């Protein structure tokens, strides 16, 4: 490959297998790339089995089957079975759409460990609007079936300005459905969410109120339901330690076999992300340009290079630096030390203005029509 050989790299622990970009839902904050419609090839069952085996041999142990909607792949039970034999802990990350009781049983028998079910809101009207698909009632049925068959269940709710007022009801719903964990994921502004940011970003006051409700609920249900609260980093002074450090822990394989150090990395320019059709996982992890790009701190510019916190946050998120400053080597502008920090303040103000305006533009939903429009014009509007 690029002549690099990083033998000091720690082995991958987490493998995210994005089986397909196909999805029956159209959530406007989807983290899939805006141009997903042009990456419509999918690697074969045999390719996935090889990837799973190679990554497991290196030390990967947590495995997420994701997408798009992973249930669109008919070979899912076969892949789950292979993963179980290799000793993975398998997580199915699903919208629940099309998940029948028979399939739940079949996957359990194949060795699936856990199901993470997304739900978009605590009311049918809002859930079905955000998903752009009638799915609320079915998701609740699926949640009960998941628990009936003895799986641990994470209920994942992405939080944004259209549903943040439902925080209390969302938690009540999760408790009532028997969730073991509820993940309250404040929207991260990549992919489709970046395009819809003005319409999705809550105000600081809304965040604070919602977080207080979640914290109080945490104490109330401490023994039976764990609450994960994914922070809204636009309102923090320091960036998140993205991916626990680039190329240290996480490996994502996209539906067409492209290996990514983070599931948004496809948006970054000139990384030349390698494909599992051309290289082994070991070559990809240790030798590829993409996985070595942000390892260590040689790549850093100021203010990161001389910062005493650089080992804590690794300069933050490179996708965010690229999307908001145009250079992926810049410090994540969330950091108050970044010379570009004003773009975060501008984004917050812009969302606030949009929230107060009487004629907000409509949300852009994640679907093939909009993706193709983006590919043709390199823009959505």
């Amino acid at each position, binding site marked *: 490959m690029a002549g690099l050989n990083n033998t000091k790299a720690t*082995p991958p*622990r987490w493998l995210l297998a994005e089986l397909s970009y196909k999805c029956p839902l159209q959530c406007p904050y989807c983290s899939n790339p805006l141009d997903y419609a042009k990456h419509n090839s999918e690697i074969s069952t045999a390719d996935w089995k090889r990837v799973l085996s190679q990554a497991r041999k*290196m*030390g990967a*142990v*947590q495995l*997420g089957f994701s997408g798009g909607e992973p249930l669109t792949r008919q070979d899912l039970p076969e892949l789950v079975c292979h993963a179980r034999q290799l*000793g993975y*802990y398998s*997580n199915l990350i699903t919208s629940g759409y099309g998940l029948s009781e028979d399939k739940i049983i079949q996957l359990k028998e194949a060795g699936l*460990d*856990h199901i*993470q079910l997304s739900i978009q809101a605590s009311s049918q009207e809002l859930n079905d609007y955000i998903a752009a698909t009638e799915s609320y009632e079915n998701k609740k049925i699926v949640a009960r079936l998941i628990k009936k068959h*003895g*799986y*641990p269940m*994470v209920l994942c709710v992405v939080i944004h300005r259209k549903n943040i007022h439902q925080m209390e009801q969302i938690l009540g719903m999760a408790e009532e459905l028997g969730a*073991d*964990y509820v993940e309250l994921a404040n929207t991260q502004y990549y992919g489709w969410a970046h395009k819809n940011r003005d319409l999705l970003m809550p105000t600081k006051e809304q965040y604070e109120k919602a977080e207080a409700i979640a914290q109080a609920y945490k104490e109330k249900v401490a*023994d039976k339901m*764990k609450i994960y609260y994914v922070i809204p980093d636009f309102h923090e002074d320091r960036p998140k330690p993205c991916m626990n450090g680039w190329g240290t822990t996480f490996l994502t394989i996209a539906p067409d076999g492209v290996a990514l150090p983070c599931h948004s990395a496809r948006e970054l320019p000139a990384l030349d992300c390698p494909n599992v059709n051309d290289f082994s996982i070991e070559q990809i992890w240790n030798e590829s340009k993409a996985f070595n790009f942000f390892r260590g701190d040689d790549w850093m510019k100021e203010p990161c290079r001389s910062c005493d916190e650089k080992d804590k946050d690794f300069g933050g998120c490179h996708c965010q630096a690229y999307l908001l400053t145009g250079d992926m080597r810049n410090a994540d502008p969330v950091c108050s030390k970044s010379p570009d920090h004003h773009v975060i303040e501008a984004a917050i103000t812009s969302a606030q203005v949009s929230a107060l305006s009487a004629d907000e533009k409509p949300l852009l939903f994640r679907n093939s029509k909009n993706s193709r429009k983006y590919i043709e014009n390199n823009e959505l509007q």
Partner: protein
Amino acid sequence: MTLNPDLIVRFSAIHRLQWEEAQQKDVILYPEGMVELNQSSAEILKLCDGSRKPEIIVADLEQKFSTSGLQKDIFNFLEIALKNGWIEQH
């Protein structure tokens, strides 16, 4: 939730205890997470098989390692394990 010395201890049905060859360690696996265990924690958890009360676990480990006075440390660890949901008592 506190440890009840009169009830048997069972490893949680929604967690998995597993030896990891790559790390040369026992680990607890759960939805999207992993805890690496040191040898003594792993030895304790392996005995949480639904057949032993806490004091039997202490006795078995003291016998296995030909030592005594482990009760306080083991009970402390079981307390933590219970709080984290790794073990259950019914």
